């Protein structure tokens, strides 16, 4: 198959089409039954992930191989968080535990060959950021799919420019899967049909895994990642307001894209000027 066609199919069309179908089947407002949309998002993403990264061995031989398993594990995290009497303290404990375990699994090779206090500090900061993003998407109100989709697209660009087309493809496929949910919500006549807050946790889990692998193994620079994260947080706050309509969405997308834009421009201007790629 032609390489470019394969890239478009695996990273864009497949996850987008699957997510449009699954969003119509599983999209649900409110907390009850929200796990369905989380499962739908995962099922929309996993085929692309397996196509791009390959079927992992058991146990996975590479850090990338853990991403699918962590995504499946996030459904369990979602279920625990969704239990009755699940307060903010319990959510924090669950997120810290789950994301810490994920970081350790993904970083094992680096920890084995090159452990240092600096690395531990970097991973601790990453954990804090990841948990913070998780707590943010667990807020019950607001659209999550649009800002998370834009965030995924930003990370995909940063990864592709930063030296890993593979990571770029994986993030792009996640952005496309989220985009399908976002598109379905925008064109659906049902009000407040959102990617459920707990279900958004699945996307944050996957996104965090891919970004961590890109940052640690592909050495994608930190500054653009930070700028994209800032844009993501801004987007999640802006989309908490219950506006609808293309004007509302366009303005908020534009606003959250500004920090991302600066990060990506910095990356382009400081990168190797050779003609490679």
């Amino acid at each position, binding site marked *: 198959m032609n390489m470019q066609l394969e890239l478009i199919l695996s990273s864009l069309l497949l996850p987008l089409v699957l997510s449009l179908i699954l969003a119509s089947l599983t999209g649900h407002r409110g907390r009850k039954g929200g796990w369905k949309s989380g499962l739908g998002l995962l099922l929309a993403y996993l085929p692309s992930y397996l196509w791009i990264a390959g079927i992992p061995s058991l146990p996975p*031989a590479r850090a990338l191989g853990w991403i699918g398993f962590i995504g499946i594990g996030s459904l369990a995290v979602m279920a625990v968080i969704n239990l009755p009497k699940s307060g903010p303290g319990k959510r924090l404990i669950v997120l810290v535990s789950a994301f810490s375990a994920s970081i350790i699994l993904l970083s094992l090779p680096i920890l084995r060959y090159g452990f240092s206090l600096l690395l531990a500090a970097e991973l601790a900061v990453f954990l804090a950021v990841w948990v913070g993003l998780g707590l943010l998407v667990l807020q019950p109100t607001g659209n999550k799919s649009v800002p998370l989709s834009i965030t995924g697209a930003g990370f995909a660009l940063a990864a592709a420019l930063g030296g890993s087309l593979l990571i770029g493809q994986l993030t792009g496929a996640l952005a496309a899967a989220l985009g399908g949910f976002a598109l379905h919500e925008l064109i659906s006549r049902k009000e407040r049909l959102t990617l459920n807050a707990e279900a958004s946790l699945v996307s944050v889990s996957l996104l965090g895994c891919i970004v961590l692998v890109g940052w640690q193994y592909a050495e994608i620079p930190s500054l653009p990642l930070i700028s994209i994260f800032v844009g993501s947080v801004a987007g999640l706050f802006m989309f908490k307001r219950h506006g609808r309509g293309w004007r509302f969405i366009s303005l908020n997308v534009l606003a959250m894209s500004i920090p991302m834009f600066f990060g990506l421009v910095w990356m382009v201007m400081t990168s190797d000027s*050779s003609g490679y790629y």
Partner: protein
Amino acid sequence: MKQMKAITVYTLVTLLFVWGGLSVPTVEAETAAAGTYKIDPEHSFVLFSVSHLGISISAGRFNDFEGNIILAPGKNSKVELTVKTASVDTYIEKRDKHLRGPDFLDTKQFPIMRFVSSKVEYNAAGEPVKLTGELFLHGKTNTVSFTVKPIGAGKDPWGGYRAGYQANTVIKRSDFGMKYMLGGVGDEIDITLNIEAIKQ
């Protein structure tokens, strides 16, 4: 008279240098003596080449490696070579970074590639001609065989003894779990080892 003297001195000095140059021992093409050798990384090269888009051949090398050779025809010969994958060098840093990343070598996860021979075959003259062994690369181990061409052996100007070989093989990177972008970067990788080793 002065001119004759100058010409004589000039001729004598020239003959002196020529004689001295001819006296420097050169490495003769001879069968390397049996023994243990240490690979000299400053005079050895680990090279590879691979198809790019099916249009041209891209090439590169690894700059950081070490190894040992035990030459013992009829007995337990052994060749070991350890290469640090992060030392990949294709003359363009951006491409080298791409090669070091998860798309290809994933050097942070797999910092070493290593070849250990299980069999060394010799010809009638006692020269190694084929090398078979296990290649550990990208977390996977496969059996590979190198064809070996002896280049030369003999004393060096510093009192040591050296032997040189060229070894070639072709591997498929997909056999070692590197399956990304097979349409753009070829699956088959030509590996050439130009080795100079110092007898211990």
